[in-house]
């Protein structure tokens, strides 16, 4: 029982990270039909923003030294500004291009961001310990101890998802955004301003990326210019198996990928454990073969004729 609860907490916290990243990707896909390959690099930039820009091997905290109440908004602002710059310089000029072109564009953008990070910070991973006391355990029930951070990750994810749902269903702009995701041209004809909706979606996607970078960097304590890429890969898989264009699907997919990873991590024999990601992928292929349209079917994912 205690063991099962421990595994469950692991699965939920990893799934939360994947779900948050998948939401950021899914949101842009809904509105822009953009598969944002740079999303992982937005996450990376959010984490690197914590330290002083220099190629030194020892990281010196910059924003990371601030009080949490100032630190978090700072990171969010940095990532949102980056996302908006990306929108102005890359996504907007490519607005009328095919989804494939957009995808390559975002791939190029991600590559440029990664290499600028290498230029400024150097290519070696750096240790950065912020809020390390969060990894201390808390006793959930007798015999079950989980890191405080896991509870925070799950809590933050739940709060963000509730806020996002409220925003999308209860506010004017949220409704606009959902309309645009459903049928962009129709939404524009009905008087929804395209640029505003898209900028809003980009900004929210950036906020979600910032949240992921904070949670992730506190958890791992390491900065690496490729850190966002692996997260993004799993988030991509999550959006595909969840069903492209469905936000619910992205969340479901995120938790599913997290659960499968943790289950494999726990129950694979130790010499097979290094191949965990390969198994995750095999399961993903299986899901795709059974349900090519994803677990949750959305109207936007169907190609219109």
């Amino acid at each position, binding site marked *: 029982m205690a063991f099962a609860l421990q595994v469950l907490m692991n699965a939920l916290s990893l799934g939360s990270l994947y779900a948050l990243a998948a939401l950021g990707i899914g949101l842009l896909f809904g509105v822009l039909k953009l598969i944002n390959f740079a999303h992982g690099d937005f996450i990376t930039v959010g984490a690197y923003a914590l330290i002083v820009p220099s190629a030194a091997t020892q990281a010196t905290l910059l924003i990371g030294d601030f009080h949490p109440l100032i630190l978090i908004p700072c990171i969010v602002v940095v990532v949102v500004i980056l996302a908006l710059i990306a929108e102005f310089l890359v996504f907007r000029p490519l607005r009328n291009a095919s989804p494939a072109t957009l*995808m390559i564009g975002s791939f190029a953008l991600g590559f440029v961001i990664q290499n600028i990070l290498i230029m400024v910070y150097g290519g070696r991973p750096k240790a950065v310990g912020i809020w390390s006391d969060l990894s201390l355990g808390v006793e959930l029930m007798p015999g079950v101890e989980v890191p405080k951070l896991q509870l925070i990750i799950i809590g933050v994810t739940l709060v963000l998802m509730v806020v996002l749902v409220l925003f999308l269903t209860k506010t004017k702009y949220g409704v606009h955004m959902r309309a645009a995701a459903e049928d962009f*041209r129709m939404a524009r004809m009905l008087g929804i301003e395209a640029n505003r909706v898209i900028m809003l979606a980009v900004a929210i996607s950036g906020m979600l990326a910032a949240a992921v970078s904070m949670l992730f960097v506190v958890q791992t304590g390491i900065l690496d210019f490729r850190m966002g890429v692996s997260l993004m890969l799993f988030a991509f898989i999550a959006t595909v198996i969840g069903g492209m264009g469905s936000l619910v699907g992205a969340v479901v997919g995120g938790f599913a990928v997290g659960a499968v990873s943790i289950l494999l991590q726990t129950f694979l024999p130790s010499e097979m454990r290094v191949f965990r990601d390969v198994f995750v992928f095999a399961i993903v292929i299986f899901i795709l073969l059974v349900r090519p349209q994803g677990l949750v079917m959305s109207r936007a994912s169907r190609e219109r004729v």
Partner: protein
Amino acid sequence: MEPKSPLGHMVRDVWPLIILSIGLLLVVAVIQSLGDRIVSQSLTEGLIRLVVVIGLYIFIGNSGLISFGHIGFMMIGAYATAWQTMDPMTKDIFIPGLPAYLLANSHHWLIATIIGGLIAAIAAFISGLAMMRLSGIAASIGTFALFMSFYSLYLQWSTWTAGQSSLVGIPVTTTPWVAFWFCIVAMIGAFVYSRSKFGLALRASREDEVAAKAAGVNVTGERVISFTISAFFVGMAGGLYGHFLGLLTVDTFYLPMTFITLSMLVVGGMQSLSGAVVGTIVLSFVIELLRKAEKGFSLGETSISLPASSAEVGLGVILLLILIFRPAGFTRNAEIYWPFKPKVAVTEVTHRQS
């Protein structure tokens, strides 16, 4: 110019292939005549990349699906080739997990390279059966995930791949001219495929998937065929690359390689063989120049050098500019028929707005 005789028409039909081969031959001959060893190494590397880009074109150009996974097939081909050509003694030390037959024997590099390509093709065929059921963007993400899983598999599979350290002791057999002939073979393969009924059917599905299906094209099947053929060439390029470097690391076949080859194809024009060749030649020169600039050059009294990895940033910026200002690439997705008139008028296909 309009051809007069039946022979002239035949020549015009294969003209893009002829002019590209001549052009490539000139480039190789001129660079080789410089006699600089380092320059000729860059040339070999560029030619191997060209084989990869032509392989990419076979799939991406004809299917219209972007694949981020082909460098995985390059890696598979590279290791499969090295397993066959390395000296049995070295294999015993670095990769003792190989089957007994491979541990005891070695093949000639040419046979090994072809077998390496075939193994990559088999891997592509099997994974393609699953991947190609997906539509457009999901298929691209699928290939990306496929790539990452191959990458992490090879990174951990140390008894076969030497894992995170490098596999050394691969005989160096790839000269510029060897790479050149592989380019020619790949070009012929790509040209013949795209003119075949398979290529035609696949391009029909690229232009309009629904209409192609209605006309009886088995879209998934055609995509699998193209995926397999392209992986064959990319796998052979991997074999060449291992025998160019003399050593292999799994990290060689990661995102930078994916990015560089994909940008070469896009910059030249994704949907034509000429685009693949032109894009590779142009970007190879640009990369070499930027790398030189990273090392530093002197302007009068002062010497200037660009910071490290500015070649990559430059490449990314060029790709973005091309995507924004000339999305069909340098060749506008057309084959080079000059000095003939192209048989069909080239029309730019605009994306159908949904």
